[in-house]
């Protein structure tokens, strides 16, 4: 048995390059239970990070009692991470919302569904009559199912006709989508997890994979412990496990000052060009914009970049050399880039590095613009966020007409005068009082949005009607006018898609508690009560269950890059998840995209005409077409510009917020798991050893971190990050504190600022000051197993759990990866130049 709190990544199964990743089946059951005690195993996939590990839910006496990885799944080959093992089900039955709540005399009181829905529908109708659909906003999640997003998208975009729909995916993966659209013409991951098996070098840009995607990191570790191991390069201001692996593998750990990623990336691109580590044939045949890119990066010499980023210029040179001279390079990108300054510009430069060398679409040469949440990809596909369904282009009248035809509504009903409203703007409209009806589903903005003092003020506004739909009484629910109790994972059926496009079916294992209903049923009920109709007076929403919604979605996806038409519930049962595009001609799905270097940039198919990376100004259709992209990718360039907030005398540190391996989002589930809660019970403030000494702070002392917006008070971990940078974990809100002193959530500190292209907030660069406010009696409650490890381990007890996970190594052979199509399905080919 294994203790997967102490041993986060589990037992090693090393293997050589190009050999398949072995199977290891992880199993965790409730205390005192054996496999023979389980009544049923129900197929699903884990929703506690973005990795999308296939699993089976153990059911006994109508209760979930455990979880087991699926050996046959291409994503995880049987493994699960600590969150999946310990956090998937322990919240079951504790503190759940079981009945609707409505606000009466200022307090939330229990009500029946009819009363609650009547209130919602009445307010909705009043505002539609008085103002119109622009009074309505919907703020959803990265944790619902595809069927729920699509239904919500149809309700919002064709029923009400409001552009004000976004998800908390805006906080997590908007930049991934934006960078893919800017470079390749459409959202959709070019690479695959299977690239880990074949690469010679792995670059992780602002991606602490060891904590945010533990099973994928285990996959990397199995290469690092095998023969012919890859070289790792990490870009991260903290000394993460990834950074340690970089140093150990003979690679490089670059720790740029937060906010300077674009300068660093321009420096790397320039080195590639200066040393001619460029595949000129590929660049000429498959890209546009080389000259402009070369001119833009020219000033970014290693010395110039070193001055901006405060890194060693020789280390930058060495990192560039590894990228420029390794046979196969895999790159991954996450929040260190996405939630920082010039997010889209910097993430596009990662794409550029690959395009310059022609390292795309081949084994070991992936770009993985990662996601933070398990179902973020579906928010993006299905149009419940700032996109139109099926990766359609809001500025392409033909795409809007397709949707209007599919839904049988007037094209003018579908708002397409601008891109759908991004979350930060949606909240601004609510603040200004032009949005007066805000429906929040499966997300907790009172903890996860930047500048929480402001968000609390917005939620408290008298003229804003707030609906909150959740499984728990969250910090956000406390501000609601109506709270709708929702079923959670394992209590409802639906599909979702992970970072590398792999679609899983998650079956219903048990009944939801009390009167809780699935999010799909709630949306369908709203649609029925609102009586949304199509052009011919027929009901707009024609389905009544998850499978019906999935079938409707398949039609919406037909002929688009995210083509689901070859999938069905039955097909997703029994084996592995399947990556889209999956159609009649590619029934087994597609492991990688763009093997032939042809991209969905043709004006008729592209999802977006692109932006100016510096300002976010949108390229007009005419200008886009004049470039004649014809299947070539864009090498988008941008100069480095200083971030909107920089440290100064008053606020001398940069505060960066982030995750710890043991928690997810705002801990509504993981905080209710005994093992996970024990591993990381309370927030902490991480300081570098030198900064701590200068402040007179020792391990465990209480410190106050203040920005221009708010404050956080927590014990200090004297850690191993770079000087000048303070780290605060973002998971900890107030649902389990009892008090209402708002000095715990990292987002008390963050600013209302966002990237001009992706509109993703800048969670990583708040200027702060740090003050010691008292001595501590014990070490900070920060895990020792991860990036938050103490600088001096003496006197800090090691984070540990119990031996309660069974790891079964290689009980079966590994599953075969899906095929790679020679030509990417649905991507038109330019006429061959004969």
């Amino acid at each position: 048995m294994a203790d997967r709190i102490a041993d986060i990544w589990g037992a090693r199964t090393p293997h050589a390059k190009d050999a398949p990743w072995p199977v290891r089946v992880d199993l965790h059951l409730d205390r005192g239970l054996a496999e023979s005690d389980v009544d049923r195993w129900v197929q699903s996939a884990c929703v506690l990070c973005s990795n999308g590990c296939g699993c089976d839910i153990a059911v006994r006496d109508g209760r979930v009692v455990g979880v087991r990885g699926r050996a046959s799944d291409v994503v995880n080959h049987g493994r699960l991470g600590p969150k999946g093992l310990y956090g998937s089900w322990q919240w079951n039955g504790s503190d759940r919302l079981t009945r609707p709540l409505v606000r009466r005399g200022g307090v939330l009181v229990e009500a029946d569904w009819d009363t609650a829905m009547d209130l919602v529908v009445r307010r909705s109708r009043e505002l539609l009559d008085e103002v119109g659909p622009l009074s309505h906003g919907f703020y959803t999640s990265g944790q619902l199912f595809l069927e729920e997003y699509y239904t919500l998208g149809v309700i919002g975009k064709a029923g009400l006709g409001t552009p004000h729909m976004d998800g908390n995916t805006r906080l997590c993966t908007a930049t991934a989508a934006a960078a893919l659209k800017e470079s390749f013409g459409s959202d959709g991951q070019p690479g695959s997890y299977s690239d880990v098996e074949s690469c010679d070098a792995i670059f992780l840009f602002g991606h602490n994979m060891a904590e945010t995607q533990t099973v994928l990191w285990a996959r990397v570790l199995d290469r690092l412990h095998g023969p012919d191991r890859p070289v790792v390069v990490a870009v991260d201001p903290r000394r993460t496990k990834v950074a340690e692996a970089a140093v150990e593998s003979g690679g490089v750990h670059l720790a740029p000052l937060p906010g300077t990623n674009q300068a660093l990336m321009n420096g790397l691109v320039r080195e590639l060009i200066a040393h001619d580590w460029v595949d000129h044939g590929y660049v000429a045949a498959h890209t546009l914009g080389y000259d402009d890119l070369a001119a833009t990066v020219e000033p970014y010499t290693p010395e110039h970049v070193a001055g901006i980023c405060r890194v060693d210029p020789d280390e930058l040179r060495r990192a560039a050399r590894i990228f420029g001279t390794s046979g196969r390079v895999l790159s991954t990108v996450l929040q260190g880039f996405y939630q920082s300054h010039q997010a889209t510009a910097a993430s596009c430069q990662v794409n550029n590095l690959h395009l310059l060398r022609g390292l795309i679409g081949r084994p070991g040469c992936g770009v993985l613009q990662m996601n933070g949440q398990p179902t973020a990809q579906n928010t993006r596909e299905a149009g419940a966020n700032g996109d139109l369904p099926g990766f359609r282009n809001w500025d392409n009248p033909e795409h809007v007409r397709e949707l209007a035809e599919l839904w049988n509504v007037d094209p003018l009903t579908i708002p397409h005068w601008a891109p759908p409203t991004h979350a930060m703007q949606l909240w601004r409209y609510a603040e200004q009082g032009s949005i007066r009806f805000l429906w929040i589903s499966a997300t907790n903005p009172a903890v996860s949005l930047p500048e929480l003092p402001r968000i609390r003020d917005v939620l408290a506004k008298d003229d804003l009607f707030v609906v909150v739909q959740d499984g728990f009484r969250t910090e956000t629910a406390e501000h609601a006018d109506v709270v709708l109790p929702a079923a959670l994972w394992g209590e409802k059926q639906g599909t979702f898609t992970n970072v590398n496009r792999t679609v899983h079916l998650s079956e219903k294992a048990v009944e939801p508690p009390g009167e809780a209903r699935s999010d799909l049923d709630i949306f369908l009920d709203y649609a029925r009560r609102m009586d949304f109709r199509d052009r011919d007076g027929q009901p707009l929403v024609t389905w009544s269950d998850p499978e019906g919604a999935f079938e409707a979605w398949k039609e919406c996806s037909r002929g688009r890059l995210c083509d689901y038409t070859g999938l069905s519930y039955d097909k997703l049962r029994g084996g592995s998840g399947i990556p889209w595009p999956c159609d009649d001609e590619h029934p087994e799905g597609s492991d990688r995209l763009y093997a032939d270097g042809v991209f969905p940039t043709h004006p008729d198919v592209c999802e977006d005409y692109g932006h100016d990376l510096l300002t976010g100004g949108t390229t007009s259709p005419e200008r886009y077409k004049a470039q004649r992209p014809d299947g070539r990718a864009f090498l988008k360039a941008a100069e480095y510009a200083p971030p909107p907030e920089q440290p100064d005398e008053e606020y001398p540190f940069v505060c960066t917020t982030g995750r710890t391996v043991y928690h997810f989002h705002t801990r509504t589930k993981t905080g209710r798991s005994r093992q996970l809660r024990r591993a990381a019970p309370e927030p902490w403030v991480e300081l570098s050893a030198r900064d701590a000494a200068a402040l007179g702070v020792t391990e465990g002392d209480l410190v106050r971190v203040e920005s221009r917006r708010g404050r956080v008070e927590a014990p200090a971990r004297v850690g191993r990050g770079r000087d000048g940078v303070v780290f605060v974990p973002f998971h900890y809100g107030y649902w389990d504190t009892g008090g209402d002193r708002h000095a715990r959530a990292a987002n008390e500190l963050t600013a209302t600022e966002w990237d001009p292209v992706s509109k993703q907030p800048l969670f990583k660069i708040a200027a702060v000051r740090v003050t010691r406010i008292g001595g501590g009696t014990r070490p900070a409650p920060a895990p020792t197993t991860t990036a938050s490890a103490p600088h001096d381990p003496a006197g800090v007890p090691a984070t540990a759990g119990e031996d309660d996970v069974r790891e079964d190594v290689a009980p079966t052979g590994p599953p075969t990866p899906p095929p790679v199509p020679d030509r990417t399905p649905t991507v038109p080919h330019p006429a061959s130049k004969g």
Partner: protein
Amino acid sequence: MHLATYLGLLHTSLTTLADAFREVGRGHGEEPDVRHTCQVLAARVDRQAEALAPVVERYGEHREEEPERLHATGLDTTRGGPVGLLRDLQDLYTLASLTDITWTVVGQAAQGLRDRDLIAVVASGEQDTARQLTWLRTRIKQAAPQALIAAR
């Protein structure tokens, strides 16, 4: 030669535009994207004006009497609320458009004079002005429906 006059107009309209961007950025601090982008664009207009300065000086000796009404009026204050934001962005659009067509006029003369330096300055200035207009148009299109239909 009237080019000197026009160069003077261009230089003035650039400094006016930079100040207007700064003013709108300051006045709409509640819209972080407007504040930040206006600051970034103002700094770039400053750079254009700097690049133009030596040319203005070079032709400055040949200055004619200035015709009437060759002045861009700047922004002294900003307006409040969603409609105010829209109006201020439109004022910026008007100023940037004047700058845009003035670059065109000066560029034509630069071609006629075979002045390579000025041709290069104009080319980069025109690109930057196009960027300003693109962003302003994007932001105005986004703001207009909400401001005109739903704002109170």
